[in-house]
């Protein structure tokens, strides 16, 4: 079992403390609840703690870190393929903000 750190209650993502494979069980610190990885995720990367809709603002450690660019399943890897910054976007790229 691999631990993941949920930095602030209510966060949408947690950081893994080891490499995980799809199907592995993850135990969240500090509250001890578990979830199952929906894919392979490298150590220290983020795992979704709940299903996130396209355009949803994603929070980590209590702050908005970007928006989901597509539907993200609970247990999925959250990274540059499905999360984009809310800020400093050239005008041509603002269309994916919703």
């Amino acid at each position, binding site marked *: 079992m691999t631990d993941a750190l949920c930095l602030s209650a209510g966060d949408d993502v947690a950081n893994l403390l080891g490499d995980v494979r799809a199907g592995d069980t993850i135990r969240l610190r500090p509250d001890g609840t578990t979830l199952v990885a929906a894919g392979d995720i490298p150590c220290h990367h983020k795992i979704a703690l709940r299903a996130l809709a396209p355009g949803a603002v994603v929070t980590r450690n209590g702050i908005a870190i970007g928006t989901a660019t597509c539907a993200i399943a609970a247990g999925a890897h959250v990274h540059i393929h499905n999360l984009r*910054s809310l800020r400093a976007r050239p005008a041509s790229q603002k269309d994916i903000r919703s």
Partner: protein
Amino acid sequence: MPSSIPQTSAPTALSGYRRGDGRIGCRAHLLVLNATGLTDRIARRIAAAVPGTVLTSYPYGMGVLGPDADAARRALRGLANHPNTGAVLLLSADRSRLDEVAEALDPARPFEALALDSADHDALRLTALGTAAAMRLRRAASRQARDAVTPAALCVALECGLSDPTSGIAANPLIGHVADRIVDAGGTVILGETLEWLGVEDQLARRARTPEIARRITEAVTRREALAVANGVDLLGLNPNRRNIEEGLTTIEEKASGSVAKSGSRPIEGVLDYAEAPPRPGLWLMDGPSYTPESVTGMVAAGAQVALFSTGSGNSYASALCPTLKISANARTVAALDTQIDIDASALMGGQDAAAMAGPVLDEIAAVFGGALTWGEVTDEGNEVISRYGEAL
């Protein structure tokens, strides 16, 4: 205090070099300070010929304009007068640039100044004159001695480079606890890298001493954000950079939220310009670039005697003038970079209390003041890189 952290005890006893302006150094380096590109090679030859010399070279000329001219003047004066500078050899193509730095020098600081016309514009003769001068100055600097000093004398630069998620989760909060203890003891800390306040600027602004300071914080961030947008730059890949992304950081807001943890929890006294010295103790922000060499040099020129520098996957940069303590909470990095990382904070990822580790970090700062070398000093990786804003005439 906008903090749940209790007021802390002072750091352990320190010793350092008392300077004429009242500041305290942890080193008595001979600084070879070159102010123009034309004399860069001469300065490098002199520094190579005199062991133990710190070289800083500003590679541009007198045609830099506006904010560049101001920043260059502040940086050159700040480095010449730096508390870790025991003696200084100033070099320049033009005598006017020498005078500009020399007139601001602490009169107690041993110094010599040479321009190309000191040697009829002969580079080799200036090298010979400068080498002899540097040797005299090095001997003078070596005769300075340390005294007992108070922790209120501390001025510490807070930096992170090649961050990964362990930086924001563990190493930067550790630096934040140390920063709080230094501020509580009457000392000074400086946080730079304006772009890494982006997304958390409102949190920082709430800690500002006055509404005017809060406004400067948010304006500094939105100005850099607008600069990126105006230049068509997508921050993804630049900040966070490719290595940050490989290690698990995704957006600038995420990186920034970890980065500003280095500032701790105390009130923000103001926003400094690049290389501007803080006018009084406390926590200061510096509006500056995020690229590590430029960022660190801005804080060193402002007077930081020591830098606390967190890294995720390892960053070899160190200041030459300001001993730079590398801190990592990534166990793989600590194991792999055994001649780069000074402080192993990886136990924090296992749940150890960051506040409890602040004491050992302060002890390490005290050791450096007493003469202990950082890895950056042992490996001689140190350098200073003065930032630029725009075009020159």
